[in-house]
């Protein structure tokens, strides 16, 4: 299944509509109107309003299937699930405005530079409230090591080393939050969604702009997209290359085009055995993502490298009997699973250069030479109770050498139990951690309810 010509394939992505309007239709991806959070209704029948705050309706109220082409008569009102499959009809997507007027409550005086805007976002407030150590002591300990002039006798001494918490309080005063200048290709800073498919698979996703991009006045450059159809759930998580001007566009397009391809391929070839179908669909998904990038670059008359992005593409089946899990990856970030015994495993390796921060992108020559090696399919006895797909902005904090996976799964299992799990996840992703200031995206996939208490060894 090749990539159609742009003219033959009516697409929400065409420039018929301005970008902001076009993305109002896609309720199940990270592309949301700037400044709003889109929360898709959960179709479990525990109908409860998802948002506690002021509610604003998006321009398109009905849930749309997750496709880049119109539904051609498909009466889906839930991402790819036919009405006869679903037990309940999902509520319409609801957009909740996070008020920009929440005042941060700085508890460390001084050090607030004029560059800080007094009206911070919820995530500033989170940082202000939680990164503070024992008040006045912080400043004095830091000042001693930094403020004194050169001593006449030079010792290779160990001056008082601030704790991470104290250090973060210090840098907090320096971090700015700036709105991007360029209104084109605007991307919202915070996005989260929750959804339950007709087959009982539950998906909770959140993505947020990191402190570094906020400081530079750039947009979030992570993206995610997903689709559920028949017994399959397909998820893509992408991370645009930080040095590239259109990284956010590449990230979004790659996420959408890869998922869209997998869905079409799987639906069109149900006669094939799953393993070759799955591998072909995932490989084709990567290629389609790259093709979409090239197409967009041609349209914008720029270099495809300007849209460089990583891609993690995951497809899982929830059919009784044999379960399948397929993963394709270019770049960093990865997929981790909680096992039935309560332990957890990293399922991907990722591309790492010889130093931190380096990785490969879809547009990299080296990636394209190794397409087929990048697809793995697993036959599993039962679906993992919890599968996490995340960008490196999160994952690097919880994998060696800087962390471990169990420190990720333990809090997340609690977060995902909350009634407003999507918002809770978005807030949890605001955690303050030293040297971790990249965009953060995490998609959690669950097939059975998570147990609160589990036998950790």
């Amino acid at each position, binding site marked *: 299944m090749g990539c159609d010509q742009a003219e033959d394939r009516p697409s929400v992505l065409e420039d018929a509509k301005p970008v902001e309007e076009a993305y109002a239709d896609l309720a199940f991806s990270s592309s949301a109107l700037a400044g709003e959070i889109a929360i898709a209704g959960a179709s479990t029948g525990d109908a409860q309003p998802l948002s506690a705050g002021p509610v604003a309706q998006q321009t398109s109220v009905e849930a749309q299937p997750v496709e880049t082409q119109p539904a051609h008569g498909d009466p889906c009102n839930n991402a790819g699930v036919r009405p006869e499959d679903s037990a309940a009809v999902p509520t319409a997507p609801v957009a909740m405005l996070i008020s920009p007027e929440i005042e941060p409550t700085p508890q460390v005086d001084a050090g607030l530079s004029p560059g800080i805007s007094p009206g911070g976002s919820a995530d500033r407030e989170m940082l202000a409230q939680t990164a503070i150590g024992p008040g006045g002591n912080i400043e004095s300990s830091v000042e001693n090591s930094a403020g004194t002039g050169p001593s006449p006798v*030079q010792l290779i001494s160990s001056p008082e080393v601030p704790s991470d918490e104290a250090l973060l309080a210090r840098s907090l005063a320096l971090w700015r939050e700036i709105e991007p200048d360029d209104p084109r290709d605007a991307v919202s800073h915070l996005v989260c969604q929750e959804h339950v498919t007709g087959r009982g698979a539950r998906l909770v996703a959140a993505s947020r702009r990191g402190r*570094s991009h906020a400081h530079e006045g750039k947009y979030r450059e992570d993206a995610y997209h997903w689709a559920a159809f028949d017994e399959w759930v397909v998820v893509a998580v992408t991370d645009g290359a*930080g*040095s590239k001007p259109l990284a956010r566009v590449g990230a979004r397009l790659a996420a959408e085009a890869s998922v869209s391809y997998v869905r079409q391929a799987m639906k069109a070839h149900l006669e094939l055995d799953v393993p070759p179908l799955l591998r072909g669909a995932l490989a084709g998904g990567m290629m389609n993502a790259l093709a979409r990038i090239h197409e967009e670059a041609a349209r914008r008359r720029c270099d495809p490298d300007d849209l460089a992005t990583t891609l993690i593409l995951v497809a899982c089946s929830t059919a009784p009997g044999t379960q399948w899990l397929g993963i394709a990856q270019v770049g960093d970030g990865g997929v981790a699973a909680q096992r039935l015994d309560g332990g957890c495993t990293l399922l991907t390796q990722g591309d790492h250069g*010889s*130093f*931190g921060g*380096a990785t490969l992108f879809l547009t990299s020559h080296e990636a394209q030479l190794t397409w087929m090696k990048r697809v793995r399919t697993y036959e599993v006895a039962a679906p993992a109770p919890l599968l996490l797909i995340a960008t490196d902005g999160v994952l690097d*904090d919880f994998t060696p050498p800087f962390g471990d996976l169990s420190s990720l799964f333990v809090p997340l299992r609690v977060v995902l139990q909350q009634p407003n799990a999507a918002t809770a996840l978005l807030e949890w992703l605001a955690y303050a951690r030293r040297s*971790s200031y990249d965009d953060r995206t995490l998609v959690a996939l669950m097939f059975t309810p998570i147990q609160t208490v589990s036998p950790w060894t």
Partner: protein
Amino acid sequence: MVVEAQRSRRLPIYILADRSGSMAGDPIVAVNQGLQFLKSDLETEPRAVESVWISVISFGGQARVEVPLTELMAFIPPILNAEGGTPLGGALRLLNQAIDNDIISSTGQHTGDYKPLVFLFTDGEPTDEWRTPAQEVKQRTQAKTANIIAVGCGSQVNTTTLKEITESVMLMENTGPGDFQRLLAWVSMSVKRASVPKGGGNSGTGTATVDLPPPPGSGFKIVF
């Protein structure tokens, strides 16, 4: 919520400073002031506050580690005294050891620290055996495991020698206080750029070397 890091990602900066006899007087004073400026300037940048670690290795008479790799907030800029010959080889050996010991490099399984960024200032010819450690250093730049920038200061320096250490060589023609000020300001700017995740050339596709700002004005020349 603060997640305490058992170990956090570092951007290691190594300054290799010539303090041979020829640097006595204004030049060494300017270097010392420059190091203080470097600290105070970097402390205004939150990414540097969280991630930058600095070490100073000096060479004059003998080569020694003035300050082992230390986080920015705890870094105390050393006061260097000028004396003796120019044991550049000794300094390079200390640098190689430090990079091997201080840094977590990335492997196939995981990402590590940011690529170390090394600035070497020297005003003259080395007086010890330097070619062997220089080769080892050069191999690191070719393997893209470190970014090394050599700055030749003044008229007595041999840029061919510096080219055997690294491809990135800059010439600072004069050695007045103002020149060192601009040099260290340029170093600070380079470090800030390097502290951006997936930005500049300290990351990305791995083929580019660090994305350096242009030389800081007249009197500074790139040696191709």
